[in-house]
């Protein structure tokens, strides 16, 4: 099987304090401090930067589902964001061969005032499907979501469950070759969750490649046969799910949060 994703030494650094609100005044302050301190301490750059990911490399083949394990802040979401082209890496590169869809949240682009029908087309388009592709899948999407009766009602009148089911259904019927999932299978009630996982296993068998992030060990195990463990931005394990899971759990028990 050929590689759909080839990640080579990807790194991402953030400037400390850069996330969040910033005004022009802060910016002048930073600039002032940086110009003054540059001569004072050579390490100022190191102090101000923080590597969310450092030299991560791996490949992903068609028909493979990989679970990414790691504690909060290990770099899981940053990795998915880079692969989804939401933000650039600082160093390194990744080659993506095929259509990629990021389900970091279901229902992206849903508009509360539009009907279920209109939102299916809109959300499908945000996920990279064209009008014809959505039209072909339309009946399957509606049926999977169990919302047939309310498809022409604005989604703001939907219950949370109906909303989630509709949103997930669009995502589940995507025509992409690579799916990036970030805890989206934890939505809805248990019965729907089971149905969702089942659907993803089906997609995997069709030859889709899946990258899955979840804190629910059982769920990761049921979908993925291979694990990547991230720790403080570094890839510390790449191998079978069983070994990866024990590696991860060992790490959790032996580390203390600071």
């Amino acid at each position: 099987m050929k590689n759909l994703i080839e990640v080579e030494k990807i790194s991402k650094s953030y400037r400390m304090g850069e996330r969040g609100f910033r005004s022009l005044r802060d910016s002048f302050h930073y600039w002032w401090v940086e110009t003054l301190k540059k001569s004072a301490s050579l390490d100022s750059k190191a102090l101000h930067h923080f590597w969310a990911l450092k030299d991560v490399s791996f490949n992903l083949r068609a028909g493979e589902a990989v679970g990414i394990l790691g504690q909060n802040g290990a770099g899981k979401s940053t990795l998915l964001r880079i692969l989804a082209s939401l933000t650039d890496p600082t160093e390194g590169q990744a080659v993506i061969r095929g259509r990629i869809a990021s389900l970091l949240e279901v229902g992206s682009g849903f508009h509360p005032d539009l009907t279920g029908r209109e939102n299916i087309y809109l959300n499908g388009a945000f996920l990279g499907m064209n009008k014809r592709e959505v039209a072909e899948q339309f009946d399957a999407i509606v049926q999977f979501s169990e919302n047939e009766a309310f498809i022409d009602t604005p989604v703001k009148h939907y219950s949370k469950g109906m909303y989630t089911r509709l949103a997930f259904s669009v995502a589940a019927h995507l025509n992409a070759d690579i799916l990036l999932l970030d805890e989206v299978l934890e939505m809805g009630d248990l019965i729907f969750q089971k149905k969702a996982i089942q659907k993803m296993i089906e997609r995997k068998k069709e030859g889709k490649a899946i990258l899955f992030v979840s804190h629910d060990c059982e769920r990761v195990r049921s979908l993925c046969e291979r694990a990547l463990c991230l720790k403080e931005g570094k890839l510390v394990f790449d191998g079978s799910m069983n070994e990866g899971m024990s590696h991860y759990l060992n790490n959790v028990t032996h580390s203390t949060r600071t």
Partner: protein
Amino acid sequence: MSELFTKVIRAEKSWLSFDFKSFILYRDLLFLMVRREFVSKYKQTLLGPLWFVIQPVLMAMVFVFLFSETMHVPTDGIPPVLFYFSGIVIWNFLSSSLGAISLSMLHHAELCKKVYFPRLFLPVSQLFSSFFALLIQMGVLLILYLYYYFTSDSPTFFSNGKVLLLPVGLFQLAMLSLGVGTWIAGLTSRYRDFHHLTQLGLTLWMYASPISYSLKLVSEKWKWLVLANPVSPVILSIRAALFGTEGLSLRIQLGSLGVSFLICLTGLLFFNRVQRNFIDTV
């Protein structure tokens, strides 16, 4: 698998790398985004799209009452209703599209953190949706225009070849609003200061444009200030196109067209640069 879907992700240093491939792949999305913007403005309203008409009509009535009936300000021989309505419609397009474009990035930050799509669609869809509102308002202007044309004794304002200036003027206005809007959108994603500036700036900009007054009323000493404003030539040329009033020299027209083009080009380049990593700082 087709080559079309292969892409390389890396730190991009160039200012000129536009993802043209994705514009084509996502073309249906642009249409749906424009529709979403346009429709969501009047969903759950009783009067629906009529709201696009009510606001400029009321504004024009206030202007007519205030400037013509009360202060007797001359309007270049154009019926006051048409004079003010044409100015308001044109200004509305600029201010509504510019306001929406300048916030388009910030308002969709959460969306941008979750899915990839050509970010340039955010400002462009706002521009198109404002343009549809403009078309509706231009339709009303046309009705008023025809009414005056057939009822007035001396239809002196009947236009001529200058009507060709109309699409050029609208195109220039679109470039201007896209350019200034994308500059502000890019800056606002980092510095919220620019959001506060936009509202203030738009109000001041309106007074610096010959919307509610004729250029003839401006003293020679200050005329340059009004003409330095790239919106003024557009308004004057659109009025010239519709009412056959005196336009500006070709030199000034081309100059302001060039300025608008430059603002648009640099705005798009800047926006394209900022969007690559803006979810890290927003």
